[in-house]
């Protein structure tokens, strides 16, 4: 088989698996939501939910159809790119999610741009000077940083930088993000809080992967050709450690889309994570499904990217 055909089959196989996972997730989310008590009409009416009012509203919103049929209807719609309309405010889900997804991606992007390089540098440094004072402090630091509860870190940051010192705005959304400086100021605290959480995993995995490659014969060969320590790590050890590192980075970044509810709440940042919380609270099925899809797609894309990175960095796998 020619090389390109083999890689095409690999990619096709990978896509088929991803689709299969997506379908499993959407059915799992559907059944999970069905098990939650109460439905949209009851929740919307809240305290005013008298039986007739609930029946009337449910009928008006077209919810009297059995849930499974509505779900399958939504799936059909998804295939043709229509995310359906939210039960709660009749707005198309795509519009609701649209700019919030951009917000989430922007925050995730800035956090990635900050935390990934820092984690890699710390991880590689810890591996190069393994067992040294630097290595020990980095590992103690990473553990202690992530053992402080996330909402504590965020609230403390707001208190110190926004309230007492007044350097940074407390709310990152809505603050003018015209100039780069303003944008950095606005995103500083949420990004710092998030970086604290996700960098621990990345630093530890990078360190382990680089240590493993440092002990290989070809790195010793580089030394014997007169290469310095820095060149040895960056030119020879790192490229071969990219596979496991990419995997760890992918796992950490997938947290940035779905897991950041707390930071979004404290910094009042309208992202997709909070949207999912709202959707679950109001049992808004199309919105829940769409959010779940987004989390799953981002998770799968990141993992597939990590696998591709591993294949690219290792010519033996590339045929």
């Amino acid at each position: 088989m020619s090389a390109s055909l083999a890689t095409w089959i690999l990619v096709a196989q990978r896509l088929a698996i991803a689709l299969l996972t997506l379908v499993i997730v959407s059915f799992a989310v559907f059944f999970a939501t069905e098990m939650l008590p109460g439905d949209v009409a009851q929740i919307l009416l809240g305290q005013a939910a008298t039986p007739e009012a609930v029946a009337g509203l449910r009928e008006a919103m077209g919810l009297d159809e059995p849930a499974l049929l509505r779900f399958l209807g939504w799936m059909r719609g998804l295939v043709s790119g229509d995310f359906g309309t939210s039960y709660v405010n009749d707005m198309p889900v795509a519009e609701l999610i649209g700019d919030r997804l951009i917000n989430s991606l922007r925050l995730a992007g800035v956090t990635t741009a900050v935390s990934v390089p820092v984690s890699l540098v710390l991880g590689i440094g810890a591996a190069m000077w393994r067992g040294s004072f630097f290595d020990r402090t980095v590992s103690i630091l990473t553990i202690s940083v992530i053992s402080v509860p996330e909402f504590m870190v965020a609230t403390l940051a707001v208190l110190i930088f926004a309230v007492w010192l007044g350097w940074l705005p407390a709310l990152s959304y809505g603050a003018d993000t015209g100039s780069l400086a303003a944008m950095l100021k606005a995103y500083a605290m949420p990004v710092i809080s998030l970086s604290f959480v996700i960098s621990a995993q990345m630093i530890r995995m990078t360190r382990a992967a680089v240590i493993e490659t440092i002990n290989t014969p070809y790195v010793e060969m580089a030394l014997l050709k007169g290469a310095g320590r820095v060149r040895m790590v960056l030119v020879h050890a790192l490229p071969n450690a990219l596979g496991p590192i990419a995997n760890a980075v992918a796992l950490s970044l997938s947290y940035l889309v779905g897991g950041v509810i707390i930071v979004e709440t404290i910094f009042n940042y309208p992202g997709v994570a909070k949207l999912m919380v709202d959707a679950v609270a109001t049992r808004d099925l199309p919105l829940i499904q769409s959010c779940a899809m987004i989390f799953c797609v981002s998770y799968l894309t990141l993992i597939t990217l990590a696998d591709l990175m591993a294949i690219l960095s290792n010519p033996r796998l590339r045929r």
Partner: protein
Amino acid sequence: MTKQSLVSVRDLHIGAITDSGREVEIIKGVNFEIAPGEIVALIGESGSGKTTIALSLMGHARPGCSIHAGTIRLGEHDVTAMSERRRADIRGTEVSYVPQSAAAAFNPSKRIMDQVIEVTAIHNLPNRSGAEARAVELFRALALPSPETIGQRYPHQVSGGQLQRLSAAMALIGDPKLVIFDEPTTALDVTTQIEVLRAFRSVMEKSDMAGVYVTHDLAVVAQIADRIIVLKGGEIQEEGTTEQIVNAPRHPYTKELLAAFDPVPHEAIATADGPDRAPLLEVDRLSAGYGSMRGGEPTAKILDDISFTLERGRNLGVVGESGSGKSTLARAIAGILPPYRGEVLVNGVALPASLGQRSKEQLRQAQIVFQLADTALNPAQPIETILGRPLTFYHGIKGRAREKRVIELLDMVQLPAALRHRLPMELSGGQKQRVNLARALGAEPQLILCDEITSALDTVVAAAILELLKELQRELSLSYMFISHDLSTVEAICDDVLVMYKGEIVERLPAATMSTEAQHPYSKLLVSSVPKLDTGWLAGLEQDPELIARFANR
């Protein structure tokens, strides 16, 4: 003015820290000199310190080791006094290194050319294009195929032999004064080994560089070295010219090394079973391969229509170069890799193709022993558990009886009973292989499949293992199927030999007469490629070029 020596090593002491924290001295006061242009060989078993000394010439010490005393002078540099920074400057330009297994020493994710000329980038020598041109020139000198383009390929796209010669080019590109060869040909097939040795000799002679050749194979060093230093336990046993060491050794240890070389003729044991009983092992039109099955056949077909028989009490050797399918044959017989066609019969009874369906009794009869003892023994289990498991699994022996039987097995393979409490990593290569063998004996099999079990060992230790196999055969009336790429080992232990090439048996002949009456051209080529213990052998060797082109994979 007498020519001042290029390298002089005075009273060198190197210490190492074992994993339990004990400080131990591995090089105990070594003195020697190397003249410019002279090739000196360091000979000794593994653990004798030969590689450590060679590396110390470059001021490099493996993790845990450090130079305690003594001085090393290379040209006008006093290596022991230099800082790590200064030492890095002379590596690649003054002294360079050719690694033992080139396949592992090349960075898998970088093109070969980039790695070869990296020395120029590190020490910012002449510009890139100049270096590339000189590299291609070296490739041609080292008789590499298509020298202009081989540089663009990745390490995994090139054969073992070619990689070894490329690593030589990598060492010579910085035109150093001293080149260190660290057992460059041990991992190669016999035919490729000749090519590589010829390439090294021609390049070294032309450029009059000095060389240090580290190996445990006396025959190879006899072809290439001017002087030989024999090492044992970190001390020099004897030093002399190649002529004098090979032909008139003075030190008993050197004699012992040489003795391991001349093959001990193998006298066949009387075959226990007469013609009426079925052969111990019969393989009938066996075909096997790897990869997903398409239309009943795997994508990568390795063995093609193999048939042979092995009577009880006799030993069958299987020889062939890497890629000939000899290891796949052993795995197919053991059931690890189920064949897609053909049958394996033991004592006339056909064994089911895959392991799952075989009865415990069938599994017990044939045992397999692998080459690398490091990966064949579970690092997490003490020797007692490793040897005890087959006893419990096959014979249900437990508790006190099991421990007694384990001690017996250890004694059978001539290992002290106390070893049973130790972990594999605490044992030497030879000891590990003996445990490997003891485990196979635990099942009390009739047939043992030995897959290159001596290739990773030093000649002396390998000779001891062969001696042990013969003794066990006499006492336990075992049979062996002995797979190896080393003809002298096969001659020492086997009655008949199968010669394999690209998945087929090209010839079957008695081992004793193999070196003289081999018919098939490939067998002849193989036999003639085994280096002899005489210095002129390589120079005088003429081999039919047409044969080489057809069979040896360059």
